């Protein structure tokens, strides 16, 4: 018999990766130039976690997915217009600053409070999902910290696969060095899973799912609590773009033989 699980997905929003990012320093530290007008997307690895959560919930009747996200309401609403069409979930929004520069410990504290306040969440059945790193801060620590705060001591990072078994145990594949996976079996929930890419393609947009989700998303956004993030002693000495513009030599008229010879010499050179 399938196991019903309660899956909480923590997912931030990040600037669309095609945008140019330029750091600026404000009164509270660094941020991005024109941050509020940059198009945003759901963090890619967290999106993998959401898609995996949706697939897992669909395979296990009685399961439910919550999406917990911290960010400015307007940005959350914009991103949800797309994300809501992919997977059925209930949004738990928290209004707060966007971006990679706030301290992860503060973010974790805020998200933990939001999770603890979820009505109907059975923490004994909980799988806490998220990206193993974000495309903003990219520290890979927020999910762990939330897990610790919630008292969950079975944690996995760089997850590409979970197989939930009928007895309630599950097998997890975590990325380790050298392109390999560590295989673990956890006897029961709860657990924390920080996802890498997983194995699922991005689900197609389903307007019916979107309409059902939006019925709860808009009221949730209207009621979102406002969070203030503490710096926790974190100070930024500098933040700058790398100066890595290269003087590119473009070869348009070399034959394959000439290119191969040049590359072979280049590869062989120390």
């Amino acid at each position: 018999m399938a196991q019903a699980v309660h899956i909480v997905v923590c997912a931030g929003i990040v600037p669309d990766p095609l945008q140019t990012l330029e750091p600026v320093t404000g009164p509270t530290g660094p941020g991005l130039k024109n941050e509020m007008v940059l198009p945003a997307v759901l963090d890619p690895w967290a999106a993998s976690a959401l898609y995996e959560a949706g697939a897992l919930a669909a395979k296990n009747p009685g399961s439910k997915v919550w999406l917990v996200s911290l960010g400015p309401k307007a940005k959350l609403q914009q991103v949800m217009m797309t994300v809501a069409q992919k997977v059925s979930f209930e949004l738990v929004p928290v209004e707060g600053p966007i971006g990679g520069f706030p301290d992860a410990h503060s973010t974790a504290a805020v998200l933990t409070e939001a999770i603890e306040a979820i009505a109907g969440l059975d923490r004994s059945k909980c799988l806490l999902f998220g990206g193993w790193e974000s495309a903003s801060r990219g520290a890979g620590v927020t999910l762990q910290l939330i897990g610790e705060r919630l008292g969950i001591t079975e944690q996995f990072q760089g997850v590409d696969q979970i197989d939930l078994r009928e007895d309630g145990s599950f097998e997890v594949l975590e990325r380790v060095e050298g392109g390999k996976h560590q295989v673990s079996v956890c006897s029961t929930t709860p657990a924390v899973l920080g996802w890498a890419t997983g194995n699922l393609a991005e689900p197609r947009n389903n307007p019916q799912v979107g309409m059902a989700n939006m019925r709860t998303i808009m009221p949730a956004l209207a009621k979102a609590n406002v969070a203030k993030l503490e710096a926790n002693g974190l100070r930024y000495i500098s933040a700058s773009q790398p100066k890595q513009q290269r003087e590119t030599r473009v070869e348009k008229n070399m034959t394959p033989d000439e290119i191969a010879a040049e590359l072979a010499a280049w590869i062989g050179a120390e």
Partner: protein
Amino acid sequence: MESILVLTHVDETGSALSKASLEAVTAGKELAAQLSATLAIGIIGSASALNAVAATGARLLAVESEAFTQARYSSDAAAAEALCRTAQASIVIAPSSSRFSRIAAGVAHRLGGFIDTHITALSGASGIEATRWFYRQRIEAVVSRDTRPWFLLVDAGTQIAYAGEAAAASVEQVVVEAPRSRTTVTGVRAPEQGQQTIRPDAKMLFVAGAGWTKKQPDGQIHTAEAAELIMGFLKSASASLGSSKSLVDQGGEGNSVLPFLTHMNQIGQTGATPRHAKGLSTCCHGEEPHVVGWRFIGDRRAISLDPNCGWTRGKADVVYIADAFAVTAKLNALLQASKS
């Protein structure tokens, strides 16, 4: 005065320190010297592995009972917490290995401390300053913290591995009660395709883009030939294989795919940012989401049919406007001839 603890673990042999651990030892030793701080080195695993760092003169600590051999959260976090408490560390340096990346934040929280990860440089010249990247290697920042304990996870490949004379080390055993764990590590699995194409220690990174599985001038797709050429290059040049997201994603969309590629090969915004001395990109457009994964590649060359591709705009050192099928076939022949 700061008290620095370097956390280490053994490699897959179970008896020697991992290379990333030895790099963390270098970082800790240098920072301790700059700050006139005390230095301790702790290990989860075989205490005898610390013989390799006996010459550092550091205090050496170990948690090595059977219950702590598996790389899992509950037991590793308990062991690391005990090592930190025993050392009374104000600064904890550890490698950004999969084993310590899994637990370090949790341990920092248990100790009332804070953590910063993916550190690429450390300086103690005017207080402790740590350099790391934000937004997937697109913004570099230097940070500091007043709060302690401060955990710093150092990225692999950013330090020289410590290589002092090995000696019989005097190691203090730290006794930890094994926590109840619901997790059992059952093994390690290589990608299903069977051929290991990810080689972090390789000098050369070869990146395959989606063009390899697109229609060629004859109007046909030549996936099998592409696979053979790419594998041939990897063998001849002892290279590691990376891929663009679009090429890997084709597998999930039912398209013709290269049989040895997995998401673990992915380089870029949603993939890895490996460190190799040289990188050769083929059949890839070189736009920003992909190129952020090349931040730590030294010499970069690309083969592309598109003279306006991203690589030509200051992102590669040399771009050859050519057919990667033809060039790679010739290149493989040359590399194989030079080997024999």
